[in-house]
């Protein structure tokens, strides 16, 4: 392992640093999501796969973080564990100071309602509801009152104009995804998790979606965690975390597309050289 790290040193870009084995506790607590020593093991015995091999990470409020890494590196698993959709085998996660890994199903649902927003790759919207209805769905489900001003801001942000009364089937993939973003924003969650939000979109519509995500972080101060394969997508993030074999390999600031490509390449090289990722 140390061998690999040494080799990697030359190619660590400016903006990056190797993660400390245990991050310092964040003083003044601007971090809204805190994870410590997360491991996630699938299966048992010989067939066991360690999707996460000890991940610790702090996500600061208002920051847009991209999680990247080769296929099977544990991106989705990490996101699921951070969002409370999955339980880590060991380790703990705090969201807004609450240890979610200790919560019961009912409390988790409440957490998802109040503090977490989701954006998925597909199947984001209910087909029988209009765009507007989909947008406010979390509030409807929670039975919370709607903040008209906030709604107006969001409606403005998704830039759908008169198409808000249409059903998802009448909207393009990009438009649907924008509605999904607005929906994630509508309850003003502490953090939004997005898994490959542009995975199903062409580059132009993908850009629209990324633009909206970027604005959400910038203008509305929304904390966002986005899992992506796509270097273009990662360019909008304030921070890019590279996973490899279930560990954080690099933790970087803003990067250009080329820098991201180079980083990915160098990581692949490391991976090829040694202990390849768990089989998919």
């Amino acid at each position, binding site marked *: 392992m140390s061998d690999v790290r040494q080799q990697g040193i030359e190619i660590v870009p400016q903006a990056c640093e190797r993660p400390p084995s245990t991050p310092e506790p964040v003083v003044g607590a601007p971090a809204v999501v805190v994870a410590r020593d997360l491991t996630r093991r699938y299966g048992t015995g010989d067939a066991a796969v360690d999707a996460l091999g000890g991940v610790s990470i702090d996500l600061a409020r208002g920051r847009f973080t991209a999680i990247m890494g080769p296929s099977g590196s544990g991106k989705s698993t990490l996101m699921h564990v951070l969002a409370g959709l999955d339980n880590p085998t060991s380790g703990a996660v705090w969201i807004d100071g609450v240890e979610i890994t200790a919560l019961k199903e009912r409390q988790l649902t409440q957490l998802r309602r*109040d503090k977490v*927003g*989701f954006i*998925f790759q597909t*199947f984001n919207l209910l087909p029988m509801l209009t765009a507007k209805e989909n947008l406010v*769905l979390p509030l409807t489900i929670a*039975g919370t009152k709607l903040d008209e001003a906030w709604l107006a801001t969001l409606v403005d942000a998704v830039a759908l104009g008169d198409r808000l009364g249409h059903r998802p089937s009448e909207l393009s993939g990009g438009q649907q995804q924008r509605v999904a973003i607005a929906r*994630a924003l509508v309850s003003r969650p502490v953090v939004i998790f997005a898994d490959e939000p542009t995975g199903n979109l062409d580059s132009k519509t993908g850009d629209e979606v990324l633009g909206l995500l970027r604005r959400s972080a910038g203008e509305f101060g929304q904390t966002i965690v986005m899992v992506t394969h796509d270097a273009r997508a990662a360019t909008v993030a304030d921070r890019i975390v590279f996973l490899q074999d279930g560990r954080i390999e690099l933790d970087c600031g803003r990067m250009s597309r080329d820098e991201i490509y180079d980083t990915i390449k160098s990581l692949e090289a490391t991976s090829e050289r040694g202990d390849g990722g768990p089989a998919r």
Partner: protein
Amino acid sequence: MIRLSLRDLWGRKLRTALTMLAIVLGVAMIAGTYVITDQIDNGFHNIFEKAAVGTDVNITRKAAFSGSDVFSSGGALPVALLDQVRAVKGVADAAGTVEASGAVVVNGKSVSTGGAPTLVFSTAPPRFSQSKYIAGAAPARDGTVAINAKLATDKHLQVGDTIGLGTEQGQQQVVISGIFDFGNSTSIGGATLVATTVADAQRWYNQEGQYSAISVAAEPGVTPDTLAARLKTALPAYAEVKTSAQSVADNTKAVSDAIGNVLRTILLAFGGVAVIVGAFIIFNAFSITVAQRIREFAMLRSLGATRRQVLASVIGEAGALGLIASLLGIAAGIGIAKGINALFHAVGADIPTSGIALAPRTIVVSLVVGIGVALLAALAPALRATRVPPVAALHEGATLPPSVVSRYSPIIAAVAAVVGGVSLAAGMFVHGTTASRLFEMGLGAVLIFVAVAMVAKHVVRPLASVIGWPAARFAGSSGRLARENATRNPARTAATAAALMIGLAVVVFVAVFAQGFKTSFVSAVDRSVNAAIVVSGQSGGTIPDAALATVRAVPGVDQAAGVYSATTQINDGSTASMTGVDPVTFGPMWRFHWLKGGSDALLGKLTGGAALVEEQFAAKYNLSKGKSFVALGQTGTKQRFTVIGEFRDPTLLTGFTVSQNAFDRLVPSNQRDPFYIIASSSADPAQTEAAVATALKAFPTAKVQTKADYTASLKKQVDQLLTLIYALLAVSVIISVFGIVNTLVLSVYERTREIGMLRAIGTTRRQMRRIVRYESVITSIIGGILGTVLGVLFAYVVSTRLASQGITFSVPWGQLVVFLIVAGFVGVIAAVLPARRAARVNILDAIHYE
């Protein structure tokens, strides 16, 4: 390909089980019906056969015409005929017997038989008798009787005990001389058997100098056929001579026509409803799974499977399902039959049975119905599957191409509605045999159901928005989402609701119709009877004529009159009911609804050949005042009657009414008993009732009631029948519950990702369950509303058609509301399992892309 579909069947066990249940229950009802009715038929056949042992030829009096009675008989034979019989060459022995129905009284209390008859018969010489004495002996002296073993055991009776026997001459105190088994059984299908001497039977049952039948034994070497032929030539024409084999067959057929066939037709109708409900469920299940398997079909097609292969795979699946379900249904049917036997046994009314009778016909019909329905219902979905283009394999959310059927569905629905309407109308208005008319009406109703089910998808949206309104309003997002879910695939919701609709439509039809019947029949009694007391017979039977004089003699009774009724043949054609009354006593106690200027004064002229005709009878035979018709009675006498007046009474005094004298001429003496005795009293009705009841203790079959109690008991009888019908219809409703469960389970499966997403954005499990539950309730109430509307409509049409028979149309609103609530409840129950599944959806699994 077939293997593939069988694997698919196995792979989706829950769906398969639910779909199969839809067929299993319907087939079980059909198979069970056949098993039970075959059993009854065989049971009676065995009894008749047993009773005929030792008898080669049987002689009765020929019926003047075959009427609507079970055993139409022309009355009794003169005793002198016995000597004539004995004189015929080849007769080894002959004996006359007298048969009647009576009642047994033990310790002053009439023995309740649970509806089974108490048969009284005179003893015959041992060679003709199947009574095996287990104690004492056959009655040798007048005033002694033998009873069957079951009665003796039930009532702890022994030889030497005294019991009361209800007869035409009032109650007789008789001493038990013996206790016997009939053949090897202690009873005949729960009936009570009493053997008397010939002389007693003749005296007590108005058959002095007469026999009911003569049993003949042939000399060795003489075949029954030869002997019967000889007897036919030797005896007068009124004697009906039959070999005992023939009479066993005829009697079996008569019982079968009266009980087995009627019961069979009725039960099969309920089974049919269940099967049709099942068909909708299968159709729906296959429609949904074909839609869900679209990419699988596309993939197969792209791998080179032909359309025919795709069709065969779906149809093969349906056939296999139908086969397994039918076999299970047959097994369940046998189980049902066994259960019912046990039930009858438990209440002491052993229906004569001969073990489980699984006729080949039962198996064939069950298989044909079960498999046929499955194939037919799966045909349209299967055809749709063949239209899946191979490229659909590449699309993420490919949808089924619209079926060939759907393009023409408005036309098909319209045609079905029109043909159904015509068939229904033909069944109701065109004359034909009852069976063919019932068939036409049934077919019409089914076609209308299909038509409504096809167009129902257009009303799903508006109905759901109305029904779902309270849910959306008060249950927030769950209600809203449920409503949206219910309307997102209106065709599916409509088909699911249609299954419930059918069951409920029949329930509502029965309820409304019964209400009308109750209202009209009971109000007719209320309106027409102007008397304080009504005496009626046991289970619709007659009362001994002698009871009338007894009632008249009771202090407090002002007047009493009997209402006598018999079947006659009119103008050598069809039969009609003839009522005989004594105009003087009956007139003041009956409020006639006179037509065409008639009045009570006409009763004064009701003598000899005069007849008062009921409106319908008049219309049927084109009669009016002054015209005449010929009536033939079972005595063989023909009488010409002249119409002196017309009245309306479609429920009680149907046919025509004549004077007592004229009636007696046409009706054999042993059938001249009143069905009712009505008595007026100026005293307190309750006191008079008590006095009459005391006086009629001598006639244990007579039931004394005040008019109010009598109408109440009529209502109760209708209600009891209704309960039974509802129980039978409940099966259809249960099947539709499975249908809703099935649809919901499939929908939940289909929406797994959606559910995962909903859960991810904060929907609680409870909310998830609620969404499914509300959707279920909305669907079932749509079915309930459609069913109620259809049922009321059918009832309206049929009641209007029967208006001339006194059936009024009256809607039991309270009950309809109850039915709708039940429908909603059905939805709640159906949702339990699917809702649990929805709530259990694992968010991670759900959002994991395929």
